């Protein structure tokens, strides 16, 4: 599997995700945002961080960068696209995913491990997980409060496009287990073709038992054909 990680000024999870991909034998390339061509890729990752210092809105400037046109073209051809944290924000700013990530409800930057539940494991990104499996994954964001209009929310539910929801350690999905105010505890969503996944939690930080856990590994192993 060939993967490309797009690097923007201010990206800071790019090397973590590269490490995760290489650990799972992806042939990975780092692609600077000013490039106008993408290497042949089965998977493109938009990493976490603070692209362009979050100027204007998180992800807004990166969402109009030169390389993004190529990412959009690849996405429309069915290439797998994974946006994590700031990458998720960029995906919503490009329009590849609908909705938006607003400021956290409590106005604080949240950096801690939270529980999320696998809502849909029937996708190229989540097939190695069990449905309703509870994972412990780190979140680190200021704008992770997912919001969308009622039509899109209906679409997400009816077409089973919600990938992950925040929950507690027993799997309860409610206001108490919602760290940032996200609509219906949504932590990650697919587009209608399910070749694009945007998620706020950081699976690339959960690939090694010595520093965290290995709950993120199956996201990357799911992708391997």
């Amino acid at each position, binding site marked *: 599997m060939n993967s490309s990680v797009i690097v923007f000024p201010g990206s800071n999870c790019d090397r973590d995700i590269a490490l995760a991909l290489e650990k799972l034998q992806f042939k990975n390339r780092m692609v600077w945002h000013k490039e106008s061509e993408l290497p042949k890729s089965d998977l493109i990752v938009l990493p976490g961080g603070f692209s362009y210092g979050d100027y*204007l*809105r998180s992800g*807004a400037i990166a969402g*109009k960068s030169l390389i993004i046109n190529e990412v959009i073209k690849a996405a429309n051809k069915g290439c797998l696209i994974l946006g994590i944290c700031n990458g998720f924000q960029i995906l919503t*700013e490009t329009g590849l995913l609908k*909705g*938006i990530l*607003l*400021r956290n*409800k409590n*106005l604080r930057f949240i950096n801690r491990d939270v529980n999320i539940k696998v809502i849909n494991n029937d996708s190229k990104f989540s097939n190695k997980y069990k449905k309703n499996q509870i994972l412990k994954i780190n979140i680190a964001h200021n704008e992770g409060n997912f*919001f*969308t*209009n009622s039509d899109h929310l209906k679409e997400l539910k009816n077409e089973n496009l919600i990938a992950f929801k925040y929950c507690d350690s027993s799997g309860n999905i409610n206001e108490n287990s919602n760290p940032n105010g996200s609509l219906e505890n949504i932590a990650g969503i697919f587009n209608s073709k399910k070749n694009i996944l945007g998620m706020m939690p950081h699976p690339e930080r959960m690939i090694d038992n010595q520093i965290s856990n290995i709950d993120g590994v199956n996201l990357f192993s799911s992708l391997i054909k």
Partner: protein
Amino acid sequence: MKFSVTVTLKKDVLDPQGKVVQNTLLNLGMNNLNSVRQGKYFEIEIDSNDEIEAKKKVDDMCKKLLANLIIEDYKVNKI
């Protein structure tokens, strides 16, 4: 030609920053305060003599970058 652009959150979108500013103003003893909404302000200078054409350009800028129309409204004025 110079234009001002004001970008504000739509009425039904929660504005936690505005809320905090509002509470702080109340703490300062500012009474009769109904609500505070926070937004963004831009001044844009365009090299043009055609006001209608220039305003159209600024409008396009708002739609493409300055505002996210899912949650924000914008106003353009000549200054």
